[in-house]
């Protein structure tokens, strides 16, 4: 016990609270298992976060872990402040040119993804490095300050700096930072976020980081003020680890997937607890669904895509599809039905919200008897069946379908787009999705999982307890984490390769520096960040991986550092790409270091055993077609009880649907493991 207390610097019995901000509700979970849901406060989300913490009894030394969408929403709604970009002279518009591609191939008037940048806010400064990091032209700090002042005069509220080859040698960018700091606006230089090559992606990360700072920084300060004094605030990153709030305010670009990351971390943890092997997680909410593949750990990617923009920042491999409860059903010009990606949002919302909204996936569920509104926080009368039926009849008539076939069709098509995303996720990993267990969460994931399992050929799925607050549970489990990466661009010989020994490339012109030195540097930096955030040295675990490719390829694969990197690479390449060529030279492109400090395990809920008592339905749902489904209250279920489909499983956070033949058994922690019935 004493040892434990020493390991964790803060007092042992500290209360830990996780808060996840959603579109409608803000969910909070305490590490003793209590869950609260309060209405979100979109104007200032920190109000709801603080209210939820207060309800759970947050006090002075409480640790609050937060998943926020403040920055993400500002980007998605184009509410970021105008931001300036400083590049090498001659490269002023580097970030506006981007990769020259248009996001939509068949658009009459193509538009590049929106950025908080215009041509007026682009500037160039003399100074140039070559690809080895050597100076060709000296950096002009005075010109840089003049350029920065000009940008601020033209309305820039933050400035990003990206200079060519700064990943190799950050000296010029550091000089720029020093020159610009006196201007008093947030400044982000690209090499401070990551030392990786590809100027546009690195530059976009710097640009968004600079633009997000005036948004996320004040939000975090406001939240800190609303929490009890001395409460320790940590923020979830896209990469599934938490960081100190001060770091988050400085590097908000790391938070772009802060919201969805929590759920994926929870899914990976639950998969380990129940020894499920490979898991496909499905987080379905009102407007979209997030899917991820995890097997032991969740795969990381060095780049994420949001609002059409590729941002170079470490992230969990999460794929988003435009299929949610609010997805709109409509007909195309040729008379085929389509569902999504447009969403009814919260205004007007689905037809059943009674605001003349369109027919959506949620309406279809309501009319098919797949919802039990008495479990909803807003109560049994919160949904307008008549309005939903009216919308369905109109749509069915145009589609020349019966209303029943039309409502079922809407669900089928929503499932089809999710099934496709789940398949892609497996395909990305070079794995067969049939080998995975599905793990649905979010308000609506459980409603679709049985049908998805059937169409993917998956044999079983796990319905977690309190699935509507699952993302918040993940926040409690996420380790304190810091990542560092660096491009090396050297070559390993295909056989007998060893880290630390690199081979000259291009007939001796170019010798990559030995990775050992870099690994040490990156490791020390990452560890220092964790220690600053309150971890102790002994808690910290470090993992190192390398980005490798065949010489001539332009895409890297991450392989954990090992004695024979090349061999490990051939193996992974075979799995992912379908072939390997051991005679080819393998190139070491970069190295990544991930330092993590585990957090105390939250108290797990243990259900009392059923002792022979059978699960009892508490009622039946209403439906527009025939008889409804038996409803089971998940809070009344006991360990070991069996629930067989067709059935609806409800608690106050989420609903799950079992089809005929599905057989579920309640586990000790309240999760239900379901074996799918019916033919493959």
């Amino acid at each position: 016990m004493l040892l434990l207390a020493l390991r964790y610097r803060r007092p042992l019995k500290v209360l830990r609270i996780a808060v996840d901000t959603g579109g409608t509700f803000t969910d909070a979970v305490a590490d003793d298992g209590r869950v609260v849901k309060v209405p979100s406060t979109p104007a200032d989300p920190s109000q709801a976060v603080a209210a939820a913490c207060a309800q759970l009894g947050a006090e002075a030394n409480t640790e609050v872990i937060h998943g926020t969408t403040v920055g993400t929403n500002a980007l998605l709604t184009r509410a970021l402040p105008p931001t300036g970009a400083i590049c090498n002279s001659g490269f002023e518009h580097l970030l506006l040119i981007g990769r020259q591609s248009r996001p939509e191939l068949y658009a009459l008037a193509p538009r590049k993804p929106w950025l908080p940048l215009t041509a007026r806010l682009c500037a160039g400064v003399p100074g140039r490095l070559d690809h080895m990091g050597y100076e060709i032209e000296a950096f002009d700090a005075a010109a840089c300050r003049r350029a920065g002042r000009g940008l601020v005069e033209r309305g820039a509220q933050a400035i990003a700096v990206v200079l060519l080859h700064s990943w190799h040698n950050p000296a010029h960018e550091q000089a720029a930072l020093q020159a610009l700091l006196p201007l008093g606006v947030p400044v982000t230089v690209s090499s401070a976020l990551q030392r990786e090559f590809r100027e546009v992606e690195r530059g976009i990360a710097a640009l968004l980081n600079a633009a997000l700072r005036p948004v996320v920084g004040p939000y975090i300060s406001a939240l800190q003020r609303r929490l009890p004094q001395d409460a320790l605030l940590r923020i979830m990153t896209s990469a599934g680890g938490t960081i100190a709030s001060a770091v988050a305010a400085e590097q908000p670009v790391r938070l772009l997937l802060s919201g969805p990351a929590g759920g994926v971390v929870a899914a990976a943890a639950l998969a380990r607890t129940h020894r499920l092997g490979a898991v496909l997680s499905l987080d379905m909410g009102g407007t979209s669904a997030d899917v991820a593949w995890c097997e032991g750990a969740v795969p990381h990617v060095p780049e994420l895509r949001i609002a059409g923009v590729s941002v170079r920042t470490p992230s969990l491999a999460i794929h988003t599809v435009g299929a949610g409860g609010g997805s709109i059903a409509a007909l195309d010009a040729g008379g085929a039905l389509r569902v999504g990606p447009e969403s009814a949002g919260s205004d007007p919302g689905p037809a059943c919200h009674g605001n003349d909204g369109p027919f959506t996936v949620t309406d279809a569920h309501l009319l098919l008897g797949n919802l039990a509104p008495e479990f909803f926080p807003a109560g049994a009368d919160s949904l307008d069946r008549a309005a939903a039926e009216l919308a369905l009849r109109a749509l069915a008539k145009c589609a020349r379908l019966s209303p029943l076939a039309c409502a079922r069709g809407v669900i089928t098509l929503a499932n089809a787009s999710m099934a496709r995303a789940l398949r892609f996720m497996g395909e990305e990993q070079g794995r067969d999705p049939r080998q995975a267990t599905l793990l649905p969460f979010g308000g609506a994931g459980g409603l679709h999982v049985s049908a998805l399992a059937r169409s993917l050929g998956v044999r079983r799925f796990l319905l977690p307890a309190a699935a509507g607050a699952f993302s918040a549970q993940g926040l409690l489990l996420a380790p304190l984490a810091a990542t560092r990466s660096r491009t090396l661009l050297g070559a390993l010989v295909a056989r007998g390769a060893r880290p630390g020994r690199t081979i000259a490339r291009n007939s001796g012109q170019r010798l990559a520096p030995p990775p050992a030195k870099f690994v040490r540097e990156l490791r020390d930096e990452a560890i220092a960040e964790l220690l600053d955030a309150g971890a102790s040295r002994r808690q910290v675990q470090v993992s190192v991986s390398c980005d490798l490719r065949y010489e001539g390829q332009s895409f890297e694969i991450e392989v954990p550092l090992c004695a024979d990197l090349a061999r490990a690479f051939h193996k992974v390449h075979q799995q992912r790409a379908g072939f390997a060529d051991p005679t080819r030279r393998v190139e070491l492109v970069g190295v990544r270091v991930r330092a993590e400090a585990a957090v105390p395990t939250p108290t797990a809920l243990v259900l009392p055993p059923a002792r022979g008592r059978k699960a009892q339905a508490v009622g039946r749902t209403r439906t527009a077609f025939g008889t409804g489904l038996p409803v089971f209250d998940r809070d009344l279920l006991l360990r070991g009880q069996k629930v067989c489909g067709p059935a609806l499983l409800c608690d106050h956070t989420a609903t799950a649907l079992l089809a005929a033949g599905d057989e579920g058994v309640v586990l000790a922690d309240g999760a239900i493991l379901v074996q799918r019935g019916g033919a493959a």
Partner: protein
Amino acid sequence: MKNVRKQGGLDAVELRLHQNLLSAIPEEMGLRLRRAAFSPNIKERLDFSCALTGRDGALVAQASHIPVHLGSAHLTAGHILAALGPQRGVDALAPGDMVLLNDPWAGGTHLPDITLFAPVFCARSKIADFGVLVRAHHADIGGAHPGSMGPALDLYGEGLVIPPVRLFRHGVLQQELLAMVLANTRTPDERQGDLLAQAAAVRHGVERVQELVRDQGAARLQRAVQALRRHAARSTKALLRQMRGGRHSASLLLDGPESPRLRVVLQRTPRGLRVDFTGTDPQVAAPLNANRAITISCLFYVLRLLLDRDLPTNSGCLDPVEVILPEGSLLNARRPAAVAGGNVETSQRVVDLLFLALQKAWPGRLPACSQGTMNNLTVGGVRADGRAWTFYETLGGGAGASADGPGESAVQVHMTNTLNTPVEALEAAFPVRITRYHLRTGSGGAGENRGGDGLVREMELLEPAQVTVLATRRESGAPGANGGGTGKPGEDCVIDPDGRMAPLLSSVAGKRGTRVRISTPGGGGYGAAVPRSARKP
């Protein structure tokens, strides 16, 4: 239900469901190819396409990869099935075979686009029920100029011509054929890597089709394919009915006054639309000829722009369209015309031509013309150790403005959408240095909505190298629409180490220190410009 409409046994839900199932296959193949490919051309610039074809060679589904490959897949599959069909007896296409080709008159487009095709047989059928194909632009396939995109006079000067031949027989790689192909390219290592990646993607497609046939049943799947084709045809017809009646003609020069002229007449017919290219100038002794596949792709692309985003991309889109393409013309050249630039340059002009005609048929709907070129730049040389190097890139320019707003700047338009190569990657891999890369401010056409600006890219050679530019819109700019101004034409120049500047005409042997500057064209403006004095304060 009496009023339930079934289309070949498929209702409104089943139609979309099968569209999803079928279009997922080429998309997954694309993911596979991208993950496995070697060259930046495929991996980063995404210059490839994947398609699924049916029993008659018709296009069943195509992923949105690169438009210039759109709609030529059915011609490819048709050629292969004709060349290697059951009439060949024991030598006919069999399971496990994979066909390689690039011959523009045997299913190909231009020579660098190498296609791999595999038939898929359901159960014991003798005829392939489906075909999957992957077409990818390879950075070099021989010929006189590195990158195989130089100023050749005929096809034979452009590189190795590959008729439909089997690279795999019964699943076994034909090493001798591969060796023969690799011996004819400047970058055999990369070619081998890309070809094997292409083969892996094709194999994945075959497996996925077989799975789908097992799940759905061959007969049901064929019915769905037919129903989806009718669905696309019906939607296209509905679109064409919105056009004004009468004849709408347009004509356009490929570039300056000396260059060939393209002509088209659009006319609504009871069946849908007639597109008549009669009057287009004959083919030329320069690499700017297009074959039938390319011209059809352009037409398909323009239709796709106007059609609902969610509609399936299959042969049905072309069913209501009748195309008249005079043989021996620039847009339907006879063997052995040089065609390298047909794909990348003439194709862009065909889109402009169709835009001009459609602006009359559909006032207000279409934007102004865009840069109308791909600004193909190929640089190559030989290293001190004897290793040849070559890289190829295309540059974005200004997009045409529309009624809704100004044109986008420095963007790839119409028939291509390839990514640029990062400066940091380029400088690390090749002996060149990029010295300028910025917007060409003011190059977009004037108008109520301005055309998008082109860009300027300047490169310094750090070792001697051959530099080849294949580009049009160097003499006349992109026309505006609805009274909008013309965009600035592009400019290419060579700057000697001592600072002397000269226009760059197609190909030049550059010295160490030579700089090459490409300024790409702006897009056309939309609507008459309001003079500054007349604007409300």
